Structure formats: C-alpha cells, structure tokens
C-alpha cells in the first residue's frame, strides 16, 4: 500500500520534474546534480589541456615557429610547409609506404580473426577450445618493445631460429630485417601473430548472439556445416565485421608508429619510413616543429576524411555504421 502510494507520488513528481526541466533544463539539472558537474570538471580539464589545446596548436602548421614569440605570436606563412612537403620527393615515398603497409595489414589481419572465430565456433570440445583461445589471446599482452626484440631474435640471420630451420631444410639464411622487400611482410605477419586471437573475441561474441532457432531451421533443412556457416554464421557476424572494417580503414593513415620505429634500420628504411616516423624525426629530433606539425595535420585530416567516407559508404550498403 505504502510503496504503491510512494510510486504514484514519485511518478507525479517525475512528471513535474519533466515539465520543470523543459522550462529551464540547465538550471534544474545544475541544482539537482551540482555534484556531478563538479565531478566532470577535472576530466573536462584533462581533455581540454591534453586533447583540445593540441588541436588548436595545430595552427603551428601555418606559422613560422619562433621560440621566443610562442605559437600564437609566430608569423603566418600560409601553406608554405605543405608545399615544402609535397615538393620533396620523399613525400610520395612516405605516402606510398604508409598506404602499402596499412592495406597489406588490413588484407591479412581483417579476415584471419573471422576465420579463427568461425572455426572455434564449430567445435564443441570445451577444453581444446579454451586452450586455443587462451594461447592465441596471450600475445596481445606482449609489449611492443618485447615483440620487436622477439622478431629480431627469431629472424637474426646468424642465430635466429627461423634461419636455423630454413638451413635444416637446405635453404639459405635470409636477412629478413635487412631487406626492404621483406619489411612489410615481417611487420604484417608479426602483427597477425600478436593480434589475431584477441581480435577474434568480438566475432565470437557476435556468433554467440545468433538466434539458436536459425541453427535449428538449418538443421531441419539438412544444411551441411559449410552451408550453415555461409547462410547463418556469416550474416550473423556481418554487422560486427562492418564496424571493425570501418575502424580499420579509419586507421589506415594512423599506422602504428611504435613498432615500425623500432624495426627500422638503415637497410630497410627505403620501405619502412612512414609518415608517423618521419614526423617524429623531423619534429622532435630535428626540431623542425612547423614542418612536422604540417605533415602530421595532413595525416590526421586525411584519416578523418577516410573514416567519414567509409562510414557513409557502409551505412548506404549495409545499414551498419558508427554513427
């Protein structure tokens, strides 16, 4: 009785609240939730200082940086540094390398986790399944520095286990990291080794969410395992796959700096120098601030545009999109 009354009162009060909110929403919310506003203050300051101010600092790309005058006091130079970048033949090499490694990476690391998830979903043996999952997720937690040193140790022309195995089969040793031709392959397949298992999680979840009645129906229709995968599993994971694809394409230009920088050496630099590593070297090592900011800004903008385009395309084609 009491609780029922309380609920009605609550409902009435809610209604009043709602009409009140329509009149002066901000004041109302402020009075009611001033403590929440106090809470978000510090995080907002964080985002302003470390994320938004740097965005505005990007105007440095259009200025001649003068250390005594600071960013805002430095004189404008328009598109000088963008022109400087494109006049340099190195620009096209950088763009080519970035795109090549990114697209190669996408072509390899996008489909394999899907295959892995589909395969894991087929088997019923709990222990084997759990072992495969546990082992394949593990490399995700290895740090970039350790990963790169594993690559170096394994691929070392003199002592590396990979070349020992090649020699055992009568093949000659290969200097994997000293070859500009093999660089992208080494990068992409080590990336696959490290991320395939972890990336499969999202597809496994999508598979687990498929309506069981679809499988029942497939069974009644006498579908083989292959047909079941094609007509039930694949459509079931399509939304997740589209989202993952959009995010990957949106990251094409934001190719990971950390691993590539560590894998670089003078012998493979021809194909391993990408925009991000170039920005670091020009900006922080050579103190060429304005120039490096211009190149970085260009990269960010291309990235954002790519993301928007892919998202729009995905929405039109498949009804799945980020926003």
């Amino acid at each position, binding site marked *: 009785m009491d609780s029922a009354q309380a609920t009605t009162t609550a409902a009435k009060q809610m209604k009043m609240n709602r009409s009140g909110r329509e009149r002066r929403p901000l004041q109302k919310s402020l009075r009611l*939730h001033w403590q929440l*506003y106090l809470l978000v203050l510090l995080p907002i300051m964080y*985002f302003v200082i*470390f994320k938004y101010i740097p965005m505005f*600092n990007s105007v440095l790309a259009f200025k001649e940086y003068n250390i005594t005058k600071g960013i805002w006091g430095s004189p404008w130079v328009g598109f000088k540094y963008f022109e400087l970048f494109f006049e340099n033949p190195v620009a096209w090499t950088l763009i080519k390398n970035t795109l090549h490694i990114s697209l190669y990476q996408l072509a390899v690391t996008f489909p394999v986790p899907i295959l892995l998830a589909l395969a894991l979903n087929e088997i019923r043996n709990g222990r084997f399944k759990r072992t495969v999952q546990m082992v394949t997720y*593990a*490399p995700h937690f290895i740090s970039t520095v350790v990963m790169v040193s594993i690559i170096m140790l394994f691929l070392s022309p003199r002592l590396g286990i990979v070349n020992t195995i090649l020699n055992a089969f009568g093949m000659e040793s290969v200097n994997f990291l000293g070859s500009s031709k093999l660089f992208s392959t080494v990068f992409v397949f080590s990336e696959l080794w490290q991320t395939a*298992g972890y990336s499969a999680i999202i597809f496994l979840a999508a598979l687990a969410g498929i309506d069981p009645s679809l499988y029942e129906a497939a069974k009644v229709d006498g579908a083989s395992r292959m047909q079941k995968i094609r007509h039930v599993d694949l459509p079931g994971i399509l939304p997740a796959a589209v989202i993952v694809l959009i995010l990957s394409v949106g990251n094409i230009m934001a190719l990971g700096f950390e691993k590539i920088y560590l894998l670089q050496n003078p012998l493979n630099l021809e194909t391993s120098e990408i925009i991000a590593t170039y920005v*670091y070297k020009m900006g922080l090592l050579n103190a060429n*601030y304005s120039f490096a900011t211009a190149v970085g800004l260009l990269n960010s903008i291309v990235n954002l545009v790519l993301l928007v385009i892919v998202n729009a395309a995905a929405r039109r084609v498949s009804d799945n999109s980020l926003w």
Partner: protein
Amino acid sequence: MTAERTRIQESPGDKLFLGGVYTFLLLALVIVLYPLVYIVSASFSSPEAVASGEVWLFPVHFSLEGYKAVFGNSLILTGYANSLFYAATGTLISVTLTIMIAYPLSRKTFYGRGPLIFFVLFTMLFAGGLIPTYMVVKTLGLIDTRWALLLPNAILAYQVIIARTFFQSTVPDELVEASQLDGCSDIRFIGSVVLPLSKPIIAVLALMYAVGQWNAYFDALIYLKTQELYPLQLILRSILVLNNATPIDAEEMIRRQQIAELMKYSLIIVASIPVLVIYPFVQKYFVKGVLIGSVKG
C-alpha cells in the same frame, strides 16, 4: 544435448570439414605457442647452447646465467621499480578520472550529456598530433618529470565509453530516482551504490590501463631524458633493440656476447612476467572489456 544430436547427424562431408577445422586450429595453436615456448626454453639454457642454435624446444644445459645477468643489472632493476610505480599510480589516476566522467555521462537527467559525449568521442576521431601535444607538455613544464608519463594519456576515450555503457546497463534509472527522492546526494549514491555495483568494470578499466602503462615506451622516449626515471620498456629498448648490452671486454668478448644474447631471452621473460602471471586469472575481464565496448551506444 545439442552436441549429441550434432554427432548423430554428422555426414561424411561434415566430418571431413570438422577435421579441417581441427587441423586449422591446431596449426594456429602451434604457431602461436611455439615462439613462446622457445623463448622460455632458451632463457633457461646455457649461453653456449643458445649461441650455437642447439635449443629448439626444451632447455639445453639448464642454467640460470641469463637470469643472473638480468638481476645483476642495476639499470633493469631501476626500470622495473619505475614501471611498477608508473603502472600503479597511473592506473589509480586513470581509473578515477575515467569514472568521474563516465558516470555522469550515463545519467539521463544530466543536462548537457549529448554534447559532452561528443566532446569526448571527437578526440578519438581527430588528434592534435605529436608536436602540438609535445608543446603542451613542454609549456606545462612536465618534460623530464614522472608526470609526463602519468598525465598526457590519463583518460582514454574508449574506456570512458566502456564504463558509461556499463553504468547505463547496471545502475537502473529507478534506483537513481528512488535515491533522489530519499534525499541521497549524487556523491553518496556513487559511493554507496554505484561503486559497489561496479567492481567488474573497475577491474576491466584497471587492467587495461595497467597493462597499457606497463607496456608503453613512446611517451617515455619523447618526454624523459634522465635515465633514473626511465620505465622498464625504455631500458629494454636500449638492451634488446639497440644492443647496448654490456661494455665489451676484449678478453672475454665471445663469452660476454653469448651471455648478452642469452640475457635477452631471460629479460623478455622477466619483463613480461607481471602481465603473464595475472593473465590467466583476468582473461575473462579483458574479454568482458572488449564485449562491453562492442555494444553500440
């Protein structure tokens, strides 16, 4: 039940297919596992065995020389202590700040929620870039201080989204409304209701931030100059990647080179131990993190 039925109806074609599936998974298992086993075995072998390529699966001439070299190196020990500090402090700061913004963003009656979510998400779409961020850190006087590793990446927008989604689905609006009617303040509600309900998400956030902080090297590379402040990953970089191991003495050169080579394997193990030791116990939380994050919202 389902397993039984599937087995009964298995056609020859399906059996063959299933065989293929098992082969594929077994291959994946071996490919991922072998390098890990090899590193562990090499780290426990003698320097000569590693140098001559005798190790291929199990330790050869069991020895702890590699580990002795690792623990005899004061740089590594300092780096280790630093990394423990950065991981612990950084995680505390990050989790606190993330919850401070994620919880209000999960409340429907919080005016300005929409624009604020966009404000956070936009940082995932467009970033100021390396140099402009460096300038901010420099202006604040954080260069070459411990803060440079703790503050610039304290909140990850992705984690805010995960936490917000969790709060939205775990803390029912009715409960919030009831508490307001009872005159319970937001802060008290967070302390006595939200946080106790949120142990899983706090675990997810803490683990993701801690592993991220433990494994990071880039911020340290650009912001730190003093070696005493270096996290382990930066020390690892100079030993493992740049090969600045031990100063080479002409007499014992070969022997030292061998130990330096062996030490790399032991160092990989030592550096990965904190993460690998907790990994089996926390695997489910990471999976949970990915799953919450994948819910659109």
